[in-house]
């Protein structure tokens, strides 16, 4: 298990480095000079070539690309993410303010979708062909098809404007006002979870159906074990392996979804910062956010791989 984890760790590190190179290259290939933006924003007209050069040196734009990449990475390792041109603030500070919001939203959606999705899929598989199965399965089929930002608009319209049960916009820290914060989060968490709930339940249903047909499950039944024991000890442990893979993949979907959901519900998180920074051509912010999101997704995949090795020993030696 130790070497397995070590191998996965090294692979994850390599992927993170490639992500950062990829993002850096895309950003540097973008049309336009980052300096022009800075000059326009600060209304520094008629700069002499010498002053331009001084600014270039100040932002490190005079150095070669590999050196720029190196100093960017070195800075990131020290917690220095660079300077945002559009906000005129350190990027690290901008992200630090918004990161907990996105993470909180993501973790809530992750918990909700994992529990509800697996539970729904399990019930469907165990009661296959019943009314409940039919209803849940068809709802799940729509759940993987609905655009989540549009669902957000529906929720705002129905529960916010028409019924007035939920606030339509915004975010409050749960430490400030827990009740308001929870009310504000019901809509976003619901919209963010719909796709993964549907995906998880479809996946759980089909892999459990596969497992209940296995010989060892029949043996367990004929031994006279209770349904509870069979489901928990024999069916779930094997049936959840593909689901864990899917849950790992869904971390990426959750961050993807938060870009949209934060925009719809006006939540000051990293997703919305990313969108506004792209429109403001604030590339320092964009590249830092992309790399941070990349690292989080890689970490999630790492966790999945490791738990995979634990659930299914065949993987470790494969």
């Amino acid at each position: 298990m130790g070497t397995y984890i070590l191998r996965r760790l090294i692979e994850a590190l390599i992927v993170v480095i490639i992500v950062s190179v990829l993002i850096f290259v895309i950003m540097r290939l973008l049309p336009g000079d980052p300096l022009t933006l800075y000059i326009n924003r600060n209304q520094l007209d008629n700069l002499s070539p010498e002053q331009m050069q001084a600014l270039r040196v100040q932002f490190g734009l005079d150095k070669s690309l590999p050196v720029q990449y190196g100093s960017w990475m070195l800075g990131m390792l020290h917690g220095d993410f660079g300077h945002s041109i559009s906000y005129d603030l350190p990027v690290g500070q901008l992200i630090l303010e918004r990161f907990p919001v996105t993470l909180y939203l993501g973790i809530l959606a992750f918990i909700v979708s994992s529990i509800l999705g697996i539970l729904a899929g399990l019930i469907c598989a165990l009661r296959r062909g019943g009314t409940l199965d039919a209803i849940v399965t068809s709802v799940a089929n729509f759940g993987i098809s609905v655009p989540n930002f549009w669902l957000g608009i529906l929720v705002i319209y129905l529960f916010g404007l028409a019924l007035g049960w939920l606030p339509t916009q915004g975010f409050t820290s749960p430490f400030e006002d827990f009740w308001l914060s929870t009310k504000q989060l019901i809509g976003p968490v619901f919209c963010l979870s719909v796709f993964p709930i549907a995906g998880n339940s479809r996946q759980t249903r089909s892999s459990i159906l596969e497992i209940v047909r296995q010989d060892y499950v029949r043996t367990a039944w004929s031994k006279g074990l209770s349904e509870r024991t069979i489901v928990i000890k024999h069916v779930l442990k094997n049936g959840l392996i593909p689901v864990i893979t899917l849950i790992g993949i869904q971390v990426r979907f959750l961050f993807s979804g938060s870009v949209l959901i934060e925009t719809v519900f006006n939540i000051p998180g990293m997703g919305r910062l990313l969108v506004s920074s792209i429109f403001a051509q604030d590339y320092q912010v964009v590249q830092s956010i992309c790399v941070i999101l990349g690292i989080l997704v890689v970490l999630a995949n790492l966790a999945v791989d490791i738990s995979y090795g634990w659930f299914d020993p065949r993987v470790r030696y494969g």
Partner: protein
Amino acid sequence: MSEAKDIAVEFTDIAPRVSEFRRFSNVFFSRKIVIVGLVIILGLIIVAIFAPLLAPYKPDTINMEQSLLQPSGEHLLGTDTLGRDTLSRLIYGSRISLMVGIIAVGIAASIGMTLGLIAGYFGGMTFVVIMRLMDAIMAIPMIALALVIAAFLGGGLKNVMIAVGIALMPMYARLMCGQVLSIRENDYVVAGRAIGAKSVRILFGHILPNCLPPLIVQMTMMMGTAILTEASLSFLGIGIEPPSAAWGSMITDGYRYLLTNPVLSFAPGVAIMLVVYGFNMVGDGLRDALDPRLRGML
């Protein structure tokens, strides 16, 4: 309970072989939901092709006197701020969605499958380089990646299709690579190599055709994902330029009038959902009909 089922399974095993196509169509058309999906997709294609005949008005005729009308006999789904007929814009929008689906998936599948084929067949360093690069692309959340690429390329329909294609590409590479890895150990591949067949011939003559079933399923489902991603980009405002009638940007436009004219953003959302649903259901059906073992993998 399973006793009777097992006997039934054995019976079908020794039953006379039906043709491959017959078996495929028997399974494929046996589920009502798959047929519903098929009808939706056919409907989308017909609407997209015959948009000028079906649309009651031109999608971009501005008529400020008829701005923000509620649904009526004259305008079934009302009009937007500029007095354009919502139904007509919806009908013309089907063209964009269908085109994005086909072209983005085409880009993703052709590049991704080629890379996966190469990585899986040659193995070694080629495998490591290609697959780590794919892992890196997959690590960046899809909407973020597509947004960055589309912004980098400068927006517009063409660039959105390229961005969505690149964002979806790694999934094909991964799937293809896995397929190749399992197929290249088969006897017929070894035999091909033994009689001295060239790599290209083995790759395209023997391995590729046998890899296809899961990739076809993936392509069908990815059409839905591509359409959703394009709609998301248009919703965020980076996708299709304003005069075009893209469903995603219609939702954004309508969002501002949610209180007075909710149908403006409701209708395009329903259209997106139905179309994506259609592709997903047909994908499910194809998966069950082509290879039931894939259930749970795709």
